[in-house]
């Protein structure tokens, strides 16, 4: 194997993006990735294959969602998917060289989108158990 005498330009400090997306977010990204394999498989199975030949109707879906088990499972899926998806978008954006202030703004905007989407989704799940949404929307 040849030894590298001089680093090529694309490996120089100026070319490499400052990837300071954080160690914990990296770790949680891996954990949610592993969880999502199970959750999405379960989601897919339950919605399309659990009852063969069954058409998806509101009646069928609400019967299922009245069990707390599915409320918990769907809430977990909601949270892990949103985290994994939006943190992934953040990772992609952070790999571009840009003003750190813009990066920070992007992270905050994604956090707000994530929280709003999570609450919105949860607000649709809760009425199947409690009979009324957390807030009307």
């Amino acid at each position, binding site marked *: 194997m040849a030894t590298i005498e001089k680093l090529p330009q694309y490996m120089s400090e100026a070319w490499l993006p400052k990837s300071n997306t954080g160690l914990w977010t990296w770790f949680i990204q891996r954990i949610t990735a592993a969880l*999502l394999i199970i959750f999405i498989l379960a989601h897919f199975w339950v919605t399309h294959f659990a009852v063969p030949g069954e058409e998806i109707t509101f009646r069928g879906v609400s019967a299922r969602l009245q069990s707390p088990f599915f409320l918990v499972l769907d809430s977990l899926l909601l949270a892990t*998917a949103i985290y994994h998806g939006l943190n992934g978008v953040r990772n992609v954006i952070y790999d571009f060289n840009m003003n750190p202030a813009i990066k920070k703004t992007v992270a905050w905007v994604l956090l707000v989108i994530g929280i709003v989407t999570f609450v919105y989704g949860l607000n649709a799940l809760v009425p199947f158990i409690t009979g009324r949404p957390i807030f009307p929307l």
Partner: protein
Amino acid sequence: MIRTAKTRERSLNTPVWPMNYRTGMWAWTLHRISGLALSAYLIVHIIVISSSARGPSGVNFNSLLATLTQPFFLVLDLLLWAAVLYHTLNGIRVLLFDAGIGVRRQKEIFWGLMAIAVLAWVGGIVLIFPFIAGRPPIPGP
């Protein structure tokens, strides 16, 4: 691709330049593209399904489902299935590497996982095609 001393000296001849991408770099790029697409789908999916599920009658949900089972959306579902399969299976590869497993066999692992992805995608086509063609749902066992 033949790499001569001359092409190596050209400034564009870097792994950063898509013309010079090899297996691992394409895998990484496609992982990001499919990830962005899936994130966009995820947010739309949550908002659309949640909005339709309000009220006890379920009229909105059922009419939404009637729209989403039209052939146009079923073809889009096949694209979604492709993105999910690619991102999941290549994601398993990424998780393995982060655990220190199989880095030296990355190419073989990539193509092995892609073979699984193609099989599962063709399986998806077989299952969805009768609905695209407008035939009534196949009754289950």
